[in-house]
């Protein structure tokens, strides 16, 4: 299972070296990232022909700003998926971090950089708690994060009395509403930086390689001296931080920390959280990651949502389209994989 394109994997290199530039080109052409790029360009052309407003400065700006949040949500799930686990509580953690940041700004009148750090620390703490319970109990992350999703959200609602914090520092809000070069949101830059850091982590650092190794084969990783329990806890901690970033981005964009911003129990984040990594070719069984793929996948999803809303095909049906997109993505991925296996390209 060698990597295609920008994907990285831990495992046995292919037995036979596929020779010839033609095969390499074919492999790149069949990679997830290339497919996503083609789809993004294709849909951009379709949307802009049907509705010229799609390419207006404001529309592009809004697209970048919305996708920035979705990309962070995708990253947050991605770093747990690589261990072969799941984190259903991303939405819950994101909202808790955002509410804590809001509390620090409103009730304690902290300067916003400090409050942001506080919010991220909250995300990290909740994520680490998830990881701790998972490795200590030896149970699957699905049921643990299902329970903590309910607990985190419940405690947050109980403590805040379901009320929003609207007294957000203006400097922080203006960050979310700033326009660089007319069309680029600084939030998108945050996501790009996060993506680069994650790429570096998984490609060049021992910690990142150990995370991938743990996901590929936990037992083998343990035998080769990796402290898998610690690594899994780190992954969940990182997931919590990234969810916190997404939550704080939303605060900065809307100018308020609202308990319902991710829906009941944060469930509204689940679909975007899985769409990005799955479209991007991150294996759900763990061990393989594509940061660029997740980035492009989340971007494509946001673009489709924005484009369909612009074409006024009925906002109420949007969830159906996204669900069908996820289905199509996993089915196409399955066909692609079996094609590559048959042609001995993997």
């Amino acid at each position, binding site marked *: 299972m060698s990597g295609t394109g920008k994907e990285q994997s831990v495992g046995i290199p292919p037995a036979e070296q596929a020779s010839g530039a033609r095969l390499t080109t074919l492999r790149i052409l069949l990679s997830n990232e290339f497919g996503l790029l083609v789809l993004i360009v294709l849909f951009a052309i379709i949307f802009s022909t049907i509705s010229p407003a799609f390419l207006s400065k404001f529309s592009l700006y809004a697209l970048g700003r919305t996708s920035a949040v979705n990309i962070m949500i995708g990253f947050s799930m991605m770093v747990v998926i690589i261990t072969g686990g*799941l984190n259903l509580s991303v939405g819950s953690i994101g909202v808790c971090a955002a509410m804590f940041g809001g509390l620090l700004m409103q009730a304690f009148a902290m300067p916003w950089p400090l409050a942001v750090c506080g919010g991220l620390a909250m995300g990290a703490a909740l994520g680490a708690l998830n990881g701790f*319970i998972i490795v200590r*109990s*030896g*149970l*699957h992350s*699905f*049921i*643990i994060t*299902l*329970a*903590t*999703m*309910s*607990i985190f*959200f*419940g*405690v947050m*609602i*109980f403590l805040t*009395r*379901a009320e929003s914090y609207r007294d957000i520092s203006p400097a922080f809000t203006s960050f979310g509403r700033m326009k660089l070069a007319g069309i680029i949101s600084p939030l998108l830059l945050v996501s790009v930086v996060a993506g680069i850091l994650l790429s570096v982590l998984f490609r060049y650092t021992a910690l990142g390689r150990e995370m991938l190794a743990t996901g590929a084969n936990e037992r083998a990783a343990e035998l080769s001296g990796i402290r898998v329990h610690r690594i899994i806890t780190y992954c969940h901690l990182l997931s919590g931080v990234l969810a916190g970033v997404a939550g704080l981005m939303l605060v900065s964009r809307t100018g308020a920390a609202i308990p319902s911003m991710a829906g*009941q*129990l944060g*469930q509204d984040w*689940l*679909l975007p959280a*899985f769409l990005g990594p*799955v479209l991007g070719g991150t294996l*759900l069984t763990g061990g393989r990651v594509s940061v660029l793929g997740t980035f492009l996948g989340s971007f494509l999803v946001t673009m489709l949502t924005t484009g369909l809303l612009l074409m006024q095909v*009925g906002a*109420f*049906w*949007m*969830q*159906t*389209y*996204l*669900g*069908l997109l*996820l*289905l199509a993505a*996993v*089915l196409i991925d*399955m066909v692609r994989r079996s094609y590559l296996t048959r042609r001995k390209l993997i």
Partner: protein
Amino acid sequence: MSRRFWETDWFGPLMVVVVAVAVVSILNPSFLSPFNIQVLLLAIAVNAMIAFSQMIIIAIGQMNLSVGAIGGLSAIAFAGMMEVWGIPWPIAAILALALGVLAGVANGVLVALTGISAFVITLASLSVYKGVNLGITEAQPFYKIPDVVKGLGNDTFLHPLPWLIIPCVLAALLLWYLLNRLPLGRSILAVGGNEHAAELSGISVRRVVIVAHAISGLLAASAGIMLVGRLQLGQPTIGDDWLILSFAAPVIGGAILSGGHVSVAGTLLGVAIVAIFTQVLVLFNIDPFLVQVVLGVLILWAVGVNRFREVRALKHSAQVAS
């Protein structure tokens, strides 16, 4: 293999129920008033259907995130057919149940034929079904529910037993019979226990997976229909908050999430525990927001206990072997 009764799945939860009822009724005698029992039974009747719907999927070692979406879709289909097309309620109910089965079969076919994890498939179908629900209703409830349905959803046939308890008891008995006495039920548990071994011993795993998802869809749809009667309107938000509960009750009842081991009686007691705890929060004027926390803690506690029992059983059998 017969086990002593205190080693069964349902014994622990039963003790919790008995102790909880005793303690609460001493602290607050109104807990055992006929009206309160009726409210409690109404909650248990609907929630048990939701829990059974997830339980049958846990039995085959999978999960169904779309339980709530199927329930919601069936609920608004039931209410919509009565209001918009004027279909008499029994026919509308049957059609809505059929819709639930269809939605479940779609899940099952996709999982069985593609081999993609049920988590991803049902996450996608959750979104599809919920989207269709919102697309049809545009987030507006259907208000015109016949009085018969409203009556069935709230009244008692024998004070304080509500009508809704009848389908719930029926479902529990049929499920128990299915899982313990019918070849199909044994196949379901076999697939959950070890899919590969089940396949090798001649069970059609695909067929079993599809049937289990169909049953799950049917049960979710009945919960949705029952809620329409109980709420007296076809709310598009029905099913939104089922996910946690649907896992909590079977797990409290001793279900092992990797499959092959579920208990109908235990699940029913799990539902009762959740209902009693929720009631207690209301009776003692504790913040209702804490219900979510209680549910989460119950899940953690239950999976912890199940894990402990599993480990102890393994140790025990190892000792016997040596």
